[in-house]
């Protein structure tokens, strides 16, 4: 299972990549595999305020629908427009082309409290 070392993770299987005061958010390889073929990603518009570990969007896969939880509190600054036409990017490239939103972080402490790659791998080990 691919768990990049330079990202941080939530227990709900989202990842973040930090760029200064902004984080990019997506779901992990494990999460996309559990969901199966993703066919629709429902994301809020830029400018929307999100709160840590509150649902801010959803992912429709063929078999199931799953909430997306905000890894950090802040404001959405960008959404991945290519997911509208090609939601399968979430399956094909969960850590790169399948990113979902960028959030301007309200409190740095939010990101620091997330799981390291090692801790997330341990969580997966316990799940599997």
């Amino acid at each position, binding site marked *: 299972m691919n768990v990049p070392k330079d990202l941080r993770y939530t227990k709900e299987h989202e990842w973040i990549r930090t760029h200064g005061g902004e984080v990019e958010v997506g779901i992990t390889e494990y999460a996309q*595999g559990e969901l*199966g073929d993703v066919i*629709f990603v429902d994301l809020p518009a830029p400018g929307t305020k999100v709160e840590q570990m509150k649902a801010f969007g959803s992912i429709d896969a063929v078999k199931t629908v799953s909430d997306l939880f905000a890894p950090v509190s802040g404001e959405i600054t960008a959404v991945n427009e290519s997911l509208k036409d090609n939601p399968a990017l979430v399956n094909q490239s969960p850590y790169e082309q399948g990113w979902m939103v960028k959030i301007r972080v309200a409190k740095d402490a939010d990101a620091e409290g997330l799981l390291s790659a090692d801790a997330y791998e341990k969580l997966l080990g316990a799940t599997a």
Partner: protein
Amino acid sequence: MLDTATALKRTPFHAKHVAAGAKLVPFAGHQMPIQYEGILTEHRTVRAGVGVFDVSHMGEIRLRGPGAIAYSNRLVTNEVGPSLPDGKVVYSPMCLETGGIIDDLLVYASGAERLLVVNASNAAKDLAWIRDHAPADVEVIDESEETAQLAVQGPRAEDVVAAVYGDRARALAFYEGFEEGRGEDWTLVSRTGYTGEDGFEIYVRAGRAEALWDRVFAAGNQYGIRPIGLGARDTLRLEMGYCLYGNDIDETTNPLEAGLAWTVRAEKNDFIGREAIAKVRKDGVPRRLLGLILEGNRIARPGFEVTNLERRVGTVTSGTMGISIGRPVAMAYLDAADAKPGSHLDVVARGQRIPALVAGRPMYTQGSVRSPKPRRPQ
């Protein structure tokens, strides 16, 4: 989790699933493959070529004895009495006295016997019901454990099955089958399925399962044959508007409102549920199970409300992506007045209204199946 996992039954094809990289999930007490390569790919494989489903989880109940044929005809709403020619297969609901559906099943005319193929999730309940009502001259035999079943489905299914069983398979009409061999070598091949494509279902004894899998895949290699999971089984059946027990039909729904009036032979002089269904027919059904084709890409899930501009008019029972239609599809019970194919309603999905077109069943009409109506349980 672990305790549940160990209590789950494995089908005789379990090692084949593991070798093929299946994702296995608990389903009706069995460990079943939900997908191999992905639902979208698997769905398209069945529509365009040929795919193989392990459906060994389903129940097989044999009725034997002098009263077997008459009793089978009393159990189900469709005609499976002595007039049914040997080798024919009939789809039918089996109802309570109330007209509610206990299960939907296939009845095989097997010489002087009847073989009933039932939903895995209902097998224990069905067996108890059938045993409780059986007259003294009928023996009820549960063959579920010793029976393996593969469904070979798709426009190339005939070529694959004929390569294994010869022209006898090509000659089968839709909803017709043949048996050969005895004991451990017993085989039943029927031209049946749950996908909307031409296809066959092959039953063998569990000890012959892996050899059957190998023969079918060797024969299908040149057609790109692939194993298909329960995920695609659901997308395929739902595009066809075939009912799934537990979602679209259950003990609180009757065959008439479920769109299964064609399976009820009111002229049969006696079957369980006859009076209740006759009353529903006389009074008219207040709701009907119809198809919906949704705008956008959001999927309707069971329990979602269906509304017109003024009020709630129904409830979604099944929904998925209509992969070959290119739109999300659903089935819903709709108030009879609003159940008009071609009209427009809304599905309320997580607070948002999604416009939907009311459609007859099947919603997908391009399949290679020889007749869209007869279908089978899951």
